[in-house]
């Protein structure tokens, strides 16, 4: 027997039949190529290889590289336990955007506790060359997906910053999607 998160709310437990497909949700990724570890990129760019967030107990040894899905939205990790990095596909200074799920269909996921971060908490991004860049949380904002601040998250910036994104708000059972995103902004400290 299995169930989806949706029925939990209504109190109806669905027994999984052969036709109960795992439906697209705020966590079901668009079609993406097999995950590629973000340890090297063309042009000798420095890319994030790992991420640690000590305050949350997050310690991801391998960050998955992501891009833009066919429907124009951001690809997200297929594995709910992994953190993804949005690869801007160009050698330039800019934000390091890391995406992770808040939950799966069965429980908490890698960025479940992202909402608990507080200003000053550290985010450590490991690079392929072994160096570690440390960032301090500056602010946390919850934004409606239908007014998502695209350029405030993915847009270019001359500053060395990290932006962490997960889901938040209410879960729209019909759309199988959270209504909001949680965005954590962190700036380089050393």
């Amino acid at each position, binding site marked *: 027997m299995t169930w989806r*998160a*949706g029925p*939990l*709310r209504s*109190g*109806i*437990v669905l027994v999984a039949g052969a036709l109960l497909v795992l439906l697209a*949700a*705020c*966590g*079901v*990724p668009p079609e993406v190529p097999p995950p590629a570890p973000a340890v090297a990129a063309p042009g000798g760019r420095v890319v994030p290889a790992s991420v640690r967030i000590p305050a949350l107990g997050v310690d991801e040894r391998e960050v998955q590289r992501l891009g*833009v899905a066919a429907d*124009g*939205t*951001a*690809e*997200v990790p297929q594995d*709910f336990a992994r953190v993804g990095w949005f690869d*801007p*596909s*160009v050698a*330039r200074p*800019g934000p390091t955007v890391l*995406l*992770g*799920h*808040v*939950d*799966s*269909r*069965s*429980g908490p*996921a890698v*960025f*479940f506790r992202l909402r*608990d971060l507080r200003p000053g908490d550290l985010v450590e991004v490991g690079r392929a060359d072994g160096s570690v860049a440390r960032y301090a949380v500056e602010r946390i904002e*919850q934004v*409606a*997906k*239908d*007014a*998502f601040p*695209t*350029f*405030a998250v*993915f*847009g*270019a910036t*001359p500053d060395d910053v990290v932006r962490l994104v*997960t*889901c*938040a708000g*209410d*879960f729209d*059972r019909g759309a*199988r*999607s*959270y209504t909001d*995103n949680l965005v954590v902004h962190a700036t380089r400290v050393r």
Partner: protein
Amino acid sequence: MNAGGATPVETGKSNISPIKEALVRRALPKLAALSVLTAGAVVLSSGTASAADTEVSEPDTFTSMFTVMATPDTVVGMSNQPAPGQPGATGTFNYRINSDEEIICYDLTLRGVTGEYQSPARTATHIHEAQPGMSGPPRIAFPNPSGEGGTRTSSGCLQGPFTTGVMANGQDTGSGFSLREIEDNPAAFFGDTHTAEYTAGAVRGQLTRVPMGGVETGAGATASTGDGAGTALAAGGGLLAAVAAGVAVLRRRGARSRA
């Protein structure tokens, strides 16, 4: 009409910060002054600048979005030789495109770019078509950013067909250009701005696509909405009970985070 003096359209959408909107408003008189300054350049240039590149209001939807981190080190000259731009200057250029309506909305911010603009085109702020390290013709000319202090901004929406005022092979370098070409291969285009001191470009950067809309990073197992968890307990048994307990915890957290 020379587009250098065109009035930026106030987009009024949420992704423009109130501070930036204020900057844009403050910049209006300066833009008018710039149009006077650039009028001379238009006369001196090919003289083919004509009515086009209509300033329009923001469309309801977009088909793609792009960002540019423009820096001085990537600037090249006409022979593709390195021609570094203004030290310490940066540009962040954000573009939203509706290729069905041939509209591009722009939010351009220059920091540390000083002095007057200069370009043979109608304005000095462009999207060019060229790979990294190569020079190439301008395809779109945007109203030049303006503002007090070290930051200059320019925002609005333009509708094609586009013209740049630069002639090549007997026609304007914007003629025949379609925004779909950017969507098909954004890396083959770059944004830049030219000044009298840095004629090859003060800053430059290639376009990169950014995702649109919210990020789908959750499947709902721990969602803090609704009130049916109690009844689910009766139906679901022990494992569900554990999940429901989590839901209860989350509700409290949710309430706190929304406060």
